[in-house]
Structure formats: structure tokens, C-alpha cells
């Protein structure tokens, strides 16, 4: 049973709307001013409230790791993130309170002006591809065929690790590569640096996972 206050509000509004509608459908009152106002709430105000709060809850739900992991091809990635013993980049970020249960979204979201919209559109594309191509793909095959669409951008890492911090620059590998990290010609998540981010993304970009 959900306990989030916003979910409870959304449910409350839906129940209130349903009660008004059931009253109208079962009692069949005449179309007086009172009925019109009651229906304005039952068909308009209360359902719009449900939709508004439901949208917010829904968008928040899309950030959760469990949401990403609900498609079977993502299960190994999701399980690895939740594995307390895993030392992958994704798992270590998942153990950080700043990311936690939203670590997939935190690292794979766009952070530009239209970042959220671009991220959601990308998510719709994922669902389209899953439904049309990968729904019945065995997990072993999916690990070999599914890979990230574009190289992972360093700017996503730099959203938190700005490369300006003296402690960051005190690491000699960082200091020697700082310009290449900033222009993206060396990936933070490359093997030998901090990658691979997932245990199944060991092949170079374009080759497979």
C-alpha cells in the first residue's frame, strides 16, 4: 500500500470523484444546478487534481531504479546497482545518498535546458524499442546486443565532479588529463579510469554492451 502523501492525495481525489460519479450514475438525479456543480467536481476538478498529482508521482516514479529494472533486459544492471558488494561505478554511486534509488536517472539524464524533456523522450524511445524488439529477447542475448546509444558524456559526471576542485586536481591522472576530460576526448567511464560503469559494458562503444 503506497504511503507517499502525494499518492494518498491523488487516491483521495480519485475516490471523491468516483463517489460523485457513482451517485450520479446510480441515483440518476435531474440536471439541476446542484447536479451540474457536483458533476463539475466529479468530472472536472477532482479528476484534474488526480491527473496533476498522478503526473507528478508518475514522473518521479520514472526516476526510480526499480522502474528502469522493471524491463527484464535491465534487471542485471539494476541488480548490480543494488548489490552492496559490487564495486562497479554504478553500484558505488547507488550507495551514495545523493543518488541512492535514483542512480540510473542521475547518471543517464540530460542536464541541459531541455534536459528533462530530452531524457523523457529518450525513455519513450527505450519503451518503444523494448515493446517492438527486445520484449522476448533472452537476457544472455540482450547483454550482447543492447548498448548505450551514444558515448557517455563526461558533462554528466562533471555535473557533480566539476574538475575545478583542488582535491580532484591533486590526483595526478586527473591533472594530466583535465583538458581531455573537459572536452570529452577521454571518457571518465573508460576502462583504466573509472569504467566500465556496469559489469556488462566491457566492450568498446559500438561493439556491443
Amino acid at each position, binding site marked *: 500500500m503506497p504511503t507517499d502523501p502525494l499518492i494518498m492525495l491523488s487516491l483521495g481525489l480519485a475516490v471523491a470523484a468516483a463517489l460523485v460519479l457513482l451517485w450520479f450514475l446510480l441515483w440518476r438525479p435531474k440536471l439541476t444546478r446542484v447536479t451540474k456543480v457536483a458533476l463539475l467536481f*466529479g468530472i472536472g476538478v477532482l479528476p484534474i487534481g*488526480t491527473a496533476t498529482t498522478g503526473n507528478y508521482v508518475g514522473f518521479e516514479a520514472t526516476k526510480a531504479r526499480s*522502474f528502469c529494472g*522493471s524491463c527484464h533486459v535491465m534487471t542485471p544492471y539494476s541488480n548490480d546497482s543494488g548489490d552492496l558488494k559490487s564495486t562497479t561505478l554504478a553500484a558505488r554511486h547507488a550507495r551514495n545518498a545523493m543518488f541512492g534509488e535514483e542512480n540510473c536517472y542521475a547518471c543517464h539524464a540530460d542536464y541541459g535546458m531541455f534536459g528533462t524533456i530530452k531524457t523523457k523522450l529518450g525513455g519513450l524511445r527505450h519503451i518503444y524499442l523494448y515493446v517492438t524488439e527486445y520484449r522476448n529477447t533472452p537476457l544472455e542475448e540482450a547483454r550482447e546486443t543492447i548498448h548505450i546509444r551514444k558515448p557517455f558524456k563526461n558533462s554528466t559526471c562533471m555535473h557533480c565532479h566539476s574538475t575545478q576542485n583542488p582535491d580532484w586536481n591533486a590526483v595526478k591522472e586527473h591533472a594530466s588529463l583535465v583538458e581531455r576530460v573537459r572536452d570529452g576526448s577521454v571518457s571518465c567511464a573508460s576502462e583504466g579510469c573509472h569504467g566500465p560503469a556496469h559489469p556488462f559494458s566491457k566492450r568498446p562503444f559500438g561493439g556491443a554492451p
Partner: protein
Amino acid sequence: MKLLYASAILTLIALGLMVWSLFQPTPLPVMVAMSVGQGLGTAAFAAYGYVVVRDILRLRREKRDAE
């Protein structure tokens, strides 16, 4: 009145789809709630608006004719 009953039933279906996504926040229910659910809800509200406006215009016309 029939349109209003249909509107009420559509709203109940829309509410059901929206509530489903609250209990099961996975891709299919969330997408169905945000597309089909809200589409049905909007259609139902539009139907309600049409019926109410038509009724108000009818009442005005009857009042004017009575005068």
C-alpha cells in the same frame, strides 16, 4: 443526459487507469495513465462542458421566449 452518463463512465475508466499507475509504477501503467487515462478524462470533461453549455443556452432561450 445520455452523453452525461457516458461522460461519467469515461471518467470512472480514466480514474481507474490513473489509480492503476499509482499502485504499479512501472512503464506500462504510467504510460497508459498519462496517455489513455488523461485522454479519456479530457474527452469526458469536454462532453460535460458541451452538455452544460447546451443546457444553459436552452434555458436562456426558453426564458427569452417566455418573456
